[in-house]
């Protein structure tokens, strides 16, 4: 490959070349890169809504007792905060944005296997999200069940549960179709010479993710339909007063929703696995171990769901079996961390913003993972289950993990997306605020959780006041961090980006920034002796 700046014989994908111009050209585009960006813009909007709702909760929790609004409003807010953040931000998350934008280029393809299906998935996403949001304003008031929709409460409450559940159902289909599309793309469209074990590791993580999306999502789809059937037709699946079993609901829900955690975190791990070799200028350490550990996490992740249900009255045998399996899934995550750190050894490390966020990810992900150990162990789980400790733990994973990987990915691929650089100093400042704010927001929740503060509480006992107040200030710092980040990314045009600003080795760094519509002028190949991360 030549190192000098390539010519632009073909227009970039950002230039409208079809029959439509402007907004319509985007809304009708089947280009994987444009679809990736559209997902990103939609997610930024939903994320902003979720953050605002989060802060509205933190303000109310600043003092014990009622300050600004009542418990019914609070219950609706934490429910919709969860639905928005889980179903429209972190589950589609990195796979929808960067899986679409980067993955086809990284494997040397012109697009995904089914570009029109890909656009259809995007519209399903928008429709599903719109229905979920509309549930707030229609019917008997916002749903108040929590994002988990636990029966029989979700069957009995008079609030607008059906619309929210149906929105999640539609979003599920978007996820299934994207997964299917990615599996076929990676099986059929890799560059000549790129065997599976020469595929970069971000695509590898998406491959593992896609199988979970395809195989696990239908289960939650059916389960959500069962809730609707039970509410409308009074069929007794889950509500004991109709002859149903509420614990059955929890099993069905978590059979999907636990693997869904891996739908969220696997692509995040994949992004980090790309960033660390690039900024260390070093071949990834333990390529095969990382690739296989993604599959191992996806596989074992199917068999641990009931660790969300240790206190539900399950048999002792079920409890210890699920506990044991849960501990096994911790090992492949540990393998990845060891390999990432070892990749830095004897590297030539450039501490640019994407790498800084990747370091932040590793630290926060370790805390998230390690605090998960006492949730996996039976005796300790009994104490902290359903407390603020769990709230802190999963925010460390889905926000400290997925969120920080998302920020890292934006800063990493931004020059490729827009053909522009951004201000590094500003990006670093956003990191300082986000990292400090994040820890100040969520770490106190571990402590009050250990002290016995239950989750989903509108009001609380006086001993938990200090923890909640620290969290509020952490939230403020986080919001400042987001604002700095948005200014860094979108306020003014940066200098033109070179094709390969970071010295990366994967295919996307060998084509112009921004890429032409069809990505490659000459289709890339991988030579017999070539490796995905062959730094010299």
């Amino acid at each position: 490959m030549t190192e000098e700046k390539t010519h632009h014989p073909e227009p970039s994908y950002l230039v409208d070349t079809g029959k439509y111009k402007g907004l319509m050209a985007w809304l009708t585009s089947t280009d994987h890169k444009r679809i990736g960006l559209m997902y990103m813009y939609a997610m930024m909007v939903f994320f902003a809504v979720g953050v605002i709702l989060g802060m509205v909760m933190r303000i109310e929790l600043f003092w014990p007792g009622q300050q600004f609004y009542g418990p019914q409003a609070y219950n609706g807010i934490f429910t919709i905060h969860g639905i928005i953040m889980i179903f429209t931000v972190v589950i589609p998350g990195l796979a929808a944005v960067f899986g679409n934008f980067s993955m086809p280029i990284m494997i040397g393809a012109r697009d995904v296997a089914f570009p029109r299906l890909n656009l259809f998935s995007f519209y399903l996403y928008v429709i599903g999200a719109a229905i979920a949001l509309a549930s707030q304003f229609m019917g008997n008031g916002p749903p108040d069940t929590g994002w988990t929709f636990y029966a029989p409460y979700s069957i009995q409450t008079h609030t607008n549960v059906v619309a929210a559940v149906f929105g999640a159902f539609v979003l599920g289909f978007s996820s299934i179709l994207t997964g299917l599309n990615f599996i076929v793309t990676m099986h059929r469209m890799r560059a000549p010479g790129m065997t599976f074990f020469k595929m970069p590791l971000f695509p590898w993580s998406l491959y593992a993710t896609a199988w979970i999306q395809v195989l696990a999502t239908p289960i939650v789809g059916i389960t959500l339909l069962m809730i609707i059937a039970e509410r409308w037709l009074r069929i007794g699946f889950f509500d004991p007063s109709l002859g149903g079993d509420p614990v059955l609901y929890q099993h069905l829900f978590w059979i999907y929703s636990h693997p869904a955690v891996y739908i969220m975190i696997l692509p995040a791990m994949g992004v980090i696995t790309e960033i660390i070799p690039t900024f260390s200028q070093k071949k990834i350490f333990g390529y095969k171990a990382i690739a296989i550990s993604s599959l191992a996490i996806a596989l074992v992740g199917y068999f641990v769901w009931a660790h969300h249900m240790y206190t539900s009255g399950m048999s002792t045998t079920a409890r210890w079996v699920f506990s044991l399996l849960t501990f096994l899934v911790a090992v492949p995550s540990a393998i990845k961390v060891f390999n990432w750190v070892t990749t830095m050894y004897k590297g030539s490390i450039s501490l640019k913003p994407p790498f800084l966020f990747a370091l932040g990810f590793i630290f926060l992900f370790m805390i998230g993972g390690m605090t998960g150990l006492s949730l996996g162990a039976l005796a300790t789980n009994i104490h902290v289950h359903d407390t603020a400790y769990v709230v802190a733990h999963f925010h460390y994973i889905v926000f400290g993990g997925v969120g920080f990987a998302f920020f890292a990915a934006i800063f990493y691929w931004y020059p490729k997306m827009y053909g522009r650089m951004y201000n590094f100093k500003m990006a670093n400042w956003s990191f300082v605020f986000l990292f400090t704010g994040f820890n100040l927001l969520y770490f106190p929740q571990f402590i009050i959780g250990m002290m016995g503060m239950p989750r989903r509480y509108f009001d609380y006992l006086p001993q938990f006041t200090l923890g909640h107040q620290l969290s509020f200030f952490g939230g403020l710092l986080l919001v400042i961090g987001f604002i700095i980040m948005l200014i860094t990314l979108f306020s003014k045009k940066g200098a033109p980006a070179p094709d390969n600003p970071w010295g990366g080795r994967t295919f996307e760094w060998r084509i112009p920034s921004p890429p032409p519509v069809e990505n490659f002028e000459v289709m890339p190949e991988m030579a017999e002796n070539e490796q995905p991360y062959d730094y010299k």
Partner: protein
Amino acid sequence: MGASNFVEGVDLAFKIIFGISLFFLVGITTVMLYFVFRYNRKRHPRAIQIKDNNILEITWITIPLILVLLMFYYGYVAFSPMRIVPKDAIPITVIGKMWVWTFEYEGGKQSADLVVPLNKAVKLNLHSDDVIHSLYIPAFRIKEDVVPGKNNYMWFIAQQPGEYDILCTVYCGLRHSYMEAKAKVVPEAEYQAWLKALPEKTNEPEGLTILKKNACTGCHSIDGSKIVSTSFKGLYGKTERVITNGSERTVTVDDAYIKTSVYDPDKDLVIGFQKGIMKTYKGIVTEDEITKITDYLKSIK
């Protein structure tokens, strides 16, 4: 000595898991930061490529595997006695109902707080009247879900006299965060005296018993204070502004209005309240019971 017989085992498991975790967190972070410093491009302009190392990979698969199995073991050992109840445990039935705990002792005597004797095994049979609740006593390190239609249970031996918080940890609707009670641990003699003094059958008016049984008093107080909705005190005979079929009107709270409010709460909705917060009690509260409730409401004008 811990507040209950489980505290020691649970806390030991916490210490082991947190200890190992902290060691690795500090260790890995230190090594990572050292690499970032030592191999910074300024000091180390050219990376040195190293080969994959299978022995290293196997080492860091095996060591974490052993450590997590150790954590599993300590978690299991401290947990398993929680499910084996001694034969002589004192049985107490816990009734969870939106948003009140009731503790029923032998002979059907009921209490709003859980009073137990020191150093005696106590078994709680968990029963829910509506949705899932979860009984949590943080100081005792115990928690089990209270699932309608299922017979879940928990047990403990309280080892320290005192008063401890009881909380609900499975979200159960509007006043979930107010579903609290106290666990009072007292010496055996005091416990027996308390149990004896606990009224066998309440002498309260029948209407009040019905209101309590259906948890009406969870939202409507009987002393004039506002919980969620209007207090029952002084309600009968009062005039209220309501919305009926979208238009405002004034009604007087009489027998007919009370009946409508129980069976079709959204029909004449008092201004300022949201639809759907109160469900219909049709098929739950009989007309005869409504008459008794009305009689009671008349008595607390």
